[in-house]
């Protein structure tokens, strides 16, 4: 019971973190048709910049400054780099962002070294939110979830209630027509890209203080985020949210499950034989919890290739 509740909480929060990063990615893709391979690098950049800033000016300064800087980087990329390869097609845009991801990762290693850095949460946030069955649940986890929820609400309000939101939604479908009505769509694109990047940066700044901050964090999260957008359907914010929560919950539960296929064979009395065969059959779900997202993705592809919320053609 305790396991179920804690896992559910952890899963939802991890899912919300995934959503913070994938929301930007899916927004950018929906609007501009560019899959930003460097998006997860923005996440990592956010964590490292927050670490650097917080070492001098404190945690909250880092949390504020990191998304702004990463957002700025995003805007520069969209304004100066992407247009150069736009004429050569989507493949080249993908490759460019891929190259950027490499450069960012190596640059981080240059400045901070090829090992984890000690980015910690502030003492003021280091307490237990509540006690559940003798386990203290850290407040900071709830803090991460809270930031993600706040961000989601802000995004939703912005898109549905403001004039800017109307312009962004219009430009997502018919950018040329929106521009012909007098709206500076190039600036809109740049801002959307920057906002998406800033969101990823914020996610990194918040999560990096809890999870390890190392040069690999971009790649590790990046692959999962890509799975999220494939499962949820690229361009769909709701799909991303759904897929993020699903994967978050699955991964969270899987870590605590010591079953394996052999356990199934136990039911038929063939457990001994199964364990003698070994290999995949005796592999516990908990040890392959990292692989769950990929299996999920392959399943979705088999059953419903367009992703959970489909995609617009």
């Amino acid at each position, binding site marked *: 019971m305790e396991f179920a509740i804690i896992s559910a909480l952890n899963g939802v929060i991890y899912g919300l973190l995934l959503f913070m990063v994938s929301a930007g990615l899916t927004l950018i893709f929906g609007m501009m048709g560019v*899959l930003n391979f460097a998006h997860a690098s923005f996440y990592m950049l956010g964590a490292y910049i927050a670490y650097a800033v917080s070492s001098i000016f404190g945690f909250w300064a880092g949390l504020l400054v990191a998304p702004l800087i990463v957002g700025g980087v995003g805007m520069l990329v969209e304004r100066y780099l992407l247009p150069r390869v736009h004429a050569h097609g989507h493949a080249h845009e993908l490759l460019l962002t891929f190259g950027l991801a*490499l450069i960012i*990762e190596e640059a981080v290693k240059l400045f901070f070294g090829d090992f984890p850095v000690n980015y910690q949460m502030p003492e003021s946030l280091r307490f237990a939110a509540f006690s559940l069955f003798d386990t203290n649940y850290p407040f900071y986890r709830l803090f991460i979830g809270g930031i993600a929820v706040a961000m989601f609400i802000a995004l939703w309000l912005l898109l549905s209630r403001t004039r800017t939101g109307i312009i962004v939604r219009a430009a997502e479908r018919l950018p040329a027509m929106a521009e012909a009505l007098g709206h500076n769509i190039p600036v809109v694109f740049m801002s959307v890209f920057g906002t998406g990047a800033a969101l990823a940066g914020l996610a990194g700044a918040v999560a990096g203080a809890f999870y390890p901050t190392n040069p690999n964090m971009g790649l590790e999260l990046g692959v999962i985020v890509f799975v999220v957008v494939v499962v949820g359907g690229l361009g769909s914010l709701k799909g991303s949210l759904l897929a993020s929560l699903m994967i978050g919950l699955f991964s969270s539960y899987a870590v605590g499950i010591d079953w394996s296929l052999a356990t199934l064979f136990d039911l038929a009395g063939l457990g001994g034989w199964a364990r003698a065969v070994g290999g995949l059959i005796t592999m516990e779900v908990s040890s392959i919890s990292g692989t769950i997202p990929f299996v999920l993705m392959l399943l979705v592809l*088999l059953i419903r290739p367009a992703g959970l919320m489909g995609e617009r053609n």
Partner: protein
Amino acid sequence: MRTIIPAAILLIALLAVPPFLGLGWQNALVNLLIASLFALAFNLLSGQAGLLSFGHAAYFGVGAFATLHLMIAVEDGLPFPTPLLPLAGAGAGLAVGLVAGVFATKRSGVYFALVTLAIAELFHSLAPHLQGWFGGESGISAMRMPWGGFVFGSLLEVYYLTLGWVVLSILVLWAYTRTPFGRLTLALRDNEQRVRFLGYDAHAAKVVVFTISAMFSGVAGALLAISNETANYALFSAHVSAQVVLHTFVGGATIFLGPVIGAVVFTLFAYIVSDLTRSWLFYQGLIFVLVMLYAPIGIGGVIRHHLRHWRSIDWSRLAAPYALAGVGGAMIAGGVVFLTECVAILFGEEYAVAMRDAGDTLPPFEMAGMSWDPLGPASWLPPILLLSIGGLCLHRARDRIKPLWDAIEGGAAKEGTR
């Protein structure tokens, strides 16, 4: 036909020269050949069929592991000829590629790329847990067994084996592009819908291309296994997948041998530069991005462009701006390298210690055998000068080169020589 003579010369060189090279260079050549084959196999899918795969390490890796298992069997007595070992890699690559291809080609474009990435990551995350197949975290090892009078103990013999397989594979891949199905592959890239309207099952065609690409990637992996006599799950890493993408596009995806050019350039680059600095991966990424921005057709594309218009090029006018561009490029490279190495040193552990010892001030540091003061203008002036003057040179050169090429291409268009 005029490519036959240079190709023959190259082949003769590859056959005759290596015995006189040191072990280090022989090793570099083996890796170079493997990287070239891998890149060519990759480009079958991405450059020709237009399906960009970011997880080709999967097929490379399974090829390596399958070959090692066969090598273990040969060690235990199986009478399988050592030179034919890469067939295991081909078989594994084909099998895994077939299954993966069926999944991956259900989607196209960006989705396809993501799926291939995830498949490779699936292997990467699963392999460390599978002791039997992938040797868990430490991997599998096996020895090359003698066969047919050859001991296969020396690196040179491995080199010739690798060369043989790579040349053979290149010829097969080349022949493939001449077949009707090879043409169809190109058609898939350009206009898939039309392929379908012509009556072909596009999905099946894509699966076939994927499988062939994976098969040859498996051969490349097999050659690596034979050469290294070991493999572990790191072969499935995103880094390996990334490398082949870099090689292919820096070399040029639209030319058949483009990927080989890229593989050669980057393998040699890594070989030479990695001894000099730890930041060589950064430089590699930087070169890739610069090529994408300023020479998207790749080195091979640029060469072909020049060859195509060879007769219309007036070298007396083009030589000077090209030289200027070269100088400018070299200066900018110098400035970038200077700054990067400074950063690497200043942010490194040794300097942190030196800072503490010097009482939290910024002491001078050593680079390239000279001493530099981090705050002094003597340290910052060189890179600033290099970058700005280099930039000016490039700018000037570009202003003079562009109209010359516009004229060449305009003339070609008029003559209809394309």
